[in-house]
């Protein structure tokens, strides 16, 4: 087996890298793939929380690097899905505890046993980013339709293009708010794609369900009804190679829907 190593990165913090990582990883595992996620955000680990695995961590990536345990011992199995594993970051160390070479080495070893190795990258463009990218050959750049996130994504794309090892990168636009786009108060997906001129792999709508799913430590892809969950599932299917159309995030446009909306607007104002 020779797995694909995909780094999930963004430049700017808070755009949803870790959420994206947890959901794509879970979705891929649900599709029957063997998946391992590596949290490289040393000192600020969170991927374990989103997966609800925070109490199961015994060894971290730093323990592996410093040879306190074997690589396989440090892999934490997911509660629900035996196909899914996490290699957690150390919370008490900083980014210098692991080098680019060491991460590359870990990725190489994991490739033999897994279909997908998802690397969760820290925010910023410093050493933490360089480390996370070191072992990867593909990248997913997460951004939102906001100026600062798009600008930082542009910077990241520039850095990824300069890296020989990165064979391809795709854009994932997170926290899209269709009603704001409709009223011309938010850049549309097309605007962002045009500005960054990158291939799109996913459009994820803003969804309050993300907050509750984080609270519970359960990725939203497990919720069949959630629109964001559906969108993340589609991203995973596109990664596998399926041709999945993008979700239509616009509200239903039927006559009844319009009338309904009109009246709900009227009653809403009377409060």
């Amino acid at each position: 087996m020779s797995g694909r190593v995909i780094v999930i990165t963004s430049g700017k913090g808070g755009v949803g890298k870790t959420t994206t990582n947890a959901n794509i990883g879970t979705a891929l595992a649900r599709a029957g793939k063997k998946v391992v996620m590596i949290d490289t955000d040393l000192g600020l680990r969170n991927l374990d929380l989103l997966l609800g695995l925070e109490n199961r961590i015994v060894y971290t990536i730093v323990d592996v690097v410093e040879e306190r345990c074997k690589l396989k011992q440090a892999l934490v199995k997911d509660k629900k899905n035996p196909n899914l594993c996490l290699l957690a970051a150390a919370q008490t160390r900083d980014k210098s505890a692991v080098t680019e070479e060491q991460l590359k080495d870990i990725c190489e070893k994991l490739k033999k046993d897994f279909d997908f190795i998802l690397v969760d990258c820290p925010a910023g463009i410093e050493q933490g980013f360089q480390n996370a990218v070191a072992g990867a050959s593909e990248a997913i750049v997460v951004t939102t339709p906001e100026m600062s996130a798009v600008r930082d994504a542009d910077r990241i794309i520039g850095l990824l293009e300069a890296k020989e090892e990165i064979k391809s990168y795709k854009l994932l636009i997170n926290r899209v708010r269709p009603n704001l786009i409709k009223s011309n108060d938010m850049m549309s997906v097309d605007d962002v794609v045009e500005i960054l001129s990158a291939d799109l792999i996913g459009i994820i709508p803003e969804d309050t369900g993300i907050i509750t799913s984080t609270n519970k430590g359960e990725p939203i892809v497990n919720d069949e009804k959630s629109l964001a969950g559906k969108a993340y599932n589609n991203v995973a299917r596109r990664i596998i190679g399926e041709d999945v159309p993008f979700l239509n995030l616009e509200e239903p446009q039927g006559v009844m829907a319009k009338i309904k909306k009109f009246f709900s607007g009227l009653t809403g104002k009377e409060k």
Partner: protein
Amino acid sequence: MILANLYNKVLGFFRQTEKEAEESSKDTARNRLRVVLMQDRTNLTPELMERMRKELVELLSKYVEMDKEALELNLEQDGDQVALMLSIPVIRAKDEDEIKAALEEEDKAKEDTEEISEESEDDEEESSENNDENLDDNEISDKTSENDLNSEEKTKKADEEIETAQKEDKDKNKDK
């Protein structure tokens, strides 16, 4: 109460159509982002752009008489490439003698830089006075690109530039 809301809704609808003439906040964001990304991608500060503009004016005025104030130099995005767009409203093509004189001056300048630079400044002032009456609607568009664009794209760009240059010229004529 419902009637009042209905009235507001109808009014709001008309207001919205009026609003469309203004720039939406999304467009503002997009345009600001474009400009800032151009600068990020090229490392050209506004000061450097201004300097480049001045040097280009100096170079090109040897060959053509142009509206120096209206010369525009901008970075524009073309797919994933960045193009340097130069738009010059040409007032008058210089005749052979003038070009020859300008070139000779330049040759002299190589021998003695300080002396000649003063002379050529004087020349520029004189010629711009002469040509104010001589307004000709000739527009030439010039364009250089950092990257190799194919010729199709080049002509497309050039056409766009001519259009904008002509619009500018019309505006100026109105003012007069």
